[in-house]
């Protein structure tokens, strides 16, 4: 038995990294190891399961312990990782390049810049640096990690079936015959939502007026969110672009189940969990060919290489309205999901623990 500690920025329900941490914790315990989680921010629902990060500094300095640091945003607690004794694994979930916040939010721009700077320090001390995609792994190498000390640990995905939809919301969303577009994620410039609204406007005005675009995610930057609302007004689609904000798991499931198409316009994605969730819910995925999205989709989904609004809006229409094309895209996406299932991730975790000399127990 070994002592394994996981340290992260924050732990909250419905967050992909938090879920990943909990899944690793469950496996470590099942394999007979002692496992504890520490975080800078602990949401009320996580109290009792997670301890404040400052306590991580008080852990006895044991050479036979393992600290796993999940890194997705700059947090001064990265110094705890740099100072820790014993084995150290860095799990990099990607940090948005600062330029996407430039001119919109100086604080987040600075945080991203600091975060990417600190990454160099982290890879220098880590025994192993892992990305949750090959794309993230490559960024670790660019930050100075030797390739032989890097690897990929795919993200553990939520148990979707354990999250039933809110039936009232689902019923409301399914009323009428409108084609529903969906995108999920923080409302920040790197998600390319200004491009998405323009794309939707072309679709709604030229191809199918009976349509809606649901943008589900927290409004990270008020100035950006205001600009998006103005954009929708000026393009005459304000009544069809709905900002749902951050929603509960039950509501999120309802949005997935009621949608006809999932669209990713992001300039930058380290993995894109919502695209995988969409595949699970049988939604065709149309996305920008950028960052890790092509890798996450594999041969499934449809990518646009640049925004020719007219032709991208036309393929969106086919993915919604052409039964054969839609069925084939969904079929291929289901195949792709097999490669991302939790058993594969579990095997990868076992192999990684072996690499750092940790026996897997049972």
């Amino acid at each position: 038995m070994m002592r394994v500690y996981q340290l992260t920025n924050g732990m909250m329900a419905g967050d992909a990294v938090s879920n990943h941490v909990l899944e690793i914790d469950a496996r470590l315990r099942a394999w007979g190891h002692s496992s504890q989680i520490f975080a800078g921010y602990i949401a009320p629902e996580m109290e009792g399961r997670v301890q404040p990060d400052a306590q991580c500094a008080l852990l006895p300095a044991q050479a036979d312990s393992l600290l796993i640091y999940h890194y997705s945003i700059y947090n001064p607690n990265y110094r705890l990782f740099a100072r820790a004794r014993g084995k150290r694994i860095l799990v990099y979930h990607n940090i948005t390049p600062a330029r996407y916040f430039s001119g919109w939010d100086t604080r987040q721009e600075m945080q991203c810049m600091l975060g990417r700077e600190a990454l160099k320090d982290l890879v220098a001390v880590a025994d192993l640096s892992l990305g949750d995609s090959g794309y993230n792994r490559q960024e670790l190498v660019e930050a100075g990690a030797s390739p032989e000390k890097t690897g990929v640990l795919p993200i553990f995905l939520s148990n979707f079936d354990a999250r039933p939809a809110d039936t009232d919301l689902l019923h409301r969303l399914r009323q009428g015959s409108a084609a529903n577009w969906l995108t999920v994620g923080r409302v920040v410039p790197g998600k390319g939502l200004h491009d998405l609204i323009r794309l939707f406007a072309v679709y709604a005005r030229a191809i199918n007026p009976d349509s809606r675009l649901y943008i589900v995610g927290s409004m990270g930057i008020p100035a950006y969110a205001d600009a998006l609302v103005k954009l929708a007004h000026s393009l005459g689609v304000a009544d069809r672009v709905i900002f749902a904000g951050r929603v509960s798991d039950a509501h999120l499931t309802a949005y997935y189940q009621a949608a006809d198409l999932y669209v990713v316009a992001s300039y930058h994605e380290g993995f894109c969990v919502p695209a995988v969730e969409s595949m699970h819910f049988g939604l065709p995925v149309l996305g920008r060919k950028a960052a890790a999205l092509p890798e996450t989709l594999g041969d499934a989904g449809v990518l646009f290489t640049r925004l020719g609004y007219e032709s991208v809006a036309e393929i969106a229409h086919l993915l919604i309205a052409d039964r054969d094309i839609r069925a084939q895209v969904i079929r291929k996406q289901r195949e792709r999901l097999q490669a991302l299932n939790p058993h594969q991730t579990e095997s990868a975790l076992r192999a990684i623990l072996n690499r750092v000399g940790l026996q897997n127990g049972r």
Partner: protein
Amino acid sequence: MDANKPNPQIPLEIRDPALNAAGLIRRIAEQVSRRRAEGLYPSADKLRAAWPQTAPGSKAALIDDDYIFRLLKDLTVDSYLQEVQFTSTAPVVGPVIVAVRRAWNWMSTRWYVLPLFKQQSRYNEQVIISMYRLLQSNRALQAQVDELQQRLTNLERADGGQ
């Protein structure tokens, strides 16, 4: 046509070999031509004009003194750390809860945390003063650059536009 070869006219990549990518792209191109001819799409100019070319606080705005002064003003407001004032909305027992929390804080935490608050506030103040001085120094340098630019222009004129 190779299904995976990008078509420069149609910016789509369809990687599933079971989908007839070439046929799909042809179909899309036909639809685009038809709807274009019918004038159904919003114009590219309209789409472009609807979104600002630069973000509101982009570099052009960042060198604007007013913007930096506003930023400094906001920072100044937040720079001074203040103690939390305990309140309670509970009827009847509310004042008792507040008094107990205040007493406990006074006894257990305040003596330790207050000096840290003061130290951090002093540090924040020094950072803001330094930024202000840098801003003033930047203004002075800009004035010198403007003056030198003017003198250079005058010299070039005097030298026959060379």
